[in-house]
């Protein structure tokens, strides 16, 4: 498969994630969009790794997956706690740190 296709799909995933982060207010979807952006990067790593026959990209993917998993655990815990205190999952309501 042509690398171009991989890049386009990856960019599309990243763009969808970005738009999701900026536009969605639901904390879970917001979080999902972040994961999407991470995986867009992963896809690009895998694609380039295959293109150049270099395994370093694959190693990076594993690192990113681990970090994403850890982040998901911490992030979900934060969201649950926020929900417990604020009783909402709307990220725009989480503005206690306003200056």
């Amino acid at each position, binding site marked *: 498969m042509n690398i171009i296709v991989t890049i386009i799909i990856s960019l599309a995933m990243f763009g969808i994630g*970005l738009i999701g*982060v*900026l536009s969605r*207010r639901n904390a879970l979807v*917001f979080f999902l969009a972040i994961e999407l952006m991470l995986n867009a990067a992963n896809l690009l790593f895998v694609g380039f790794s295959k293109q150049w026959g270099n395994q370093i990209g694959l190693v990076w993917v594993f690192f990113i997956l681990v970090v994403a998993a850890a982040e998901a655990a911490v992030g979900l815990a934060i969201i649950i706690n926020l929900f417990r205190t604020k009783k909402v999952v709307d*990220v*725009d309501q*989480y*503005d*206690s*740190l*306003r*200056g």
Partner: protein
Amino acid sequence: MIYAITLGLSFPLLGFLYLMLSSHFTSRLKAGQIACATVFLSFLCFVGLVSAHFNSSEHYKTIKLFPWMHLGSIHSDISLHVDELSLLMALIITGVGFLIHVYSIGYMDHEKDATRYFACLNFFIFAMLLLVMSGSLIALFFGWEAVGLASYLLIGFWYHKDKAAAAATKAFVVNRIGDLGLLLGIIFTFYLFGTDNIIEISTRALTEYPIGTPVMTVLTLLYFWGATGKSAQIPLHTWLPDAMEGPTPVSALIHAATMVTAGVYLVVRLHPIFISAPFTLQVVSVIGGVTALFAALCGLGQSDLKRVLAYSTVSQLGLMFLACGAGAFYAAMFHLTTHAFIKALLFLSAGNVVHMLRGKTEMAEMGALANKLPWTQWLFLLGVLALAGIPPFAAFFSKDLILEEEYLSGFDILYYVGLAASVLTGIYLTRAYWLTFRGASHLSPDDEAHVHEAPKVMIFPVVVLGLLAILGGFLGFSFGSLPILETFLAKADVRITHEELISSEFFTPETIMAIIGAILGIAATSWIYYAYADKLTRPWRIFSNAFYFDACYSALIVRPLERLSSLFTNCVEPKFFEGSIHWAGQAAQLASAELQRVQSGQIRSYVAWMIAGASLLLIYFVS
């Protein structure tokens, strides 16, 4: 010999330290006794030194205490130098100082804070001893400043009185102006000679710089500037009459033994340098002569007993500088000595009056005290006659010597100025005597019942001073041969300048003129106050206001300065300094008010900012 010198110097210091540290548990009488004892021990040390001096060939002693500064070509050691001049001064300081200390026990008998008083008195003695015994200008300057500090503490002893506090501040500030001159002189000395050792400078000045070199003139003028401050010469004399706000024994100490003699001592100590600057000597003469006459005229117009004596001191100091200017340093020292006795005598007997009237010093509230204070009045009269120059009392010989030296030096005008000042001395002192002790009584009924002769502790020191005032003149006078003081001081190179004064006949026309002038002055004043006391009007304003010097200083310096500082406090400070800080704060607040909008707490806006930043970075790195 070294031990005697250091002990003599440190006894008063130890007394000061002890009294200061133990002020809470030392009684008034005990404090007085300790203070007297330290000064007396110090006096004994110097008496011992003088007697040892006559038996040994070595006529001076220099003790190097410690090196102060060695920088490149500049060398300065703190050292003591004791020669005949220092010894004479030390004897006057501790001797007269001791009598004043004893007197103070009686004078301060109602004072709560007497321990502080005696501590300061001891410190004064120490400071003055350091001044006259130091061999380096830096140590001399230290003593000089310490004397200023001690005078500040003592003039302002009754600090709760506004006038006393103001007088103390005035004395301190005016003295500082003079001290600046001395300090500049010392710095200039370092520049010229690379050392501040007085003896080294004195010997090198004459060999390295020919007479009349401009740098020497500048240097000596700076020293003389310092001397005018301490010794209350025009234009820095204004602090001395105001210093009368302090306790009377303090006035006696300042005027007789310490402080004001420092300027004369400085000039005499550095006389080899002054000799090499004839112009400065002329300045010294003129300032001295003008001050002598000016202060004598002011003395005529004062209504305050102590201020009469204060102006009399200024006038006599003027005569000493007149002598210095004529090169007659020995005559100046002789007059300093006799004046110390007589002025202490006058001040302490005036102190008896003031003490008995519970602090009143206005002569308008006195009068006819002769019967109530018999001893005091005789002693005061003795002081009047002695200072007026009636033979055979002390000041006759010294004043006569000054006038003779002046006459022989060829400054005719200054001779007549000195003669006039000396005749006026008799007149204003006689006036003070009549207003205080004779004439009609102006006492309040309360005082009338209360006044009695002073206690023995206040009479005894005055009697001793009276004896000194009678006999002191013979220190510097003897028929045919060299007088004892002259032989003593000649070893320190302070001697009679005109040979004919030693050998010539005693009653020269000038002497006779001075005696007749003094007698006529006293007689005429007495007669006026005896016969026409009720017809006398107030003294001329120009005299009682001391030629408006204070008013001029107030208008020219004090008030503009006050106006300038009020401009600064009311305008520049709040608007400029405080305002600039205020506006800086305002600007920070405004800026942060705008910036804190960014800090919205909205996580999505943060993400947007982050993406914007990341995009900008991307664009920057790609392009």
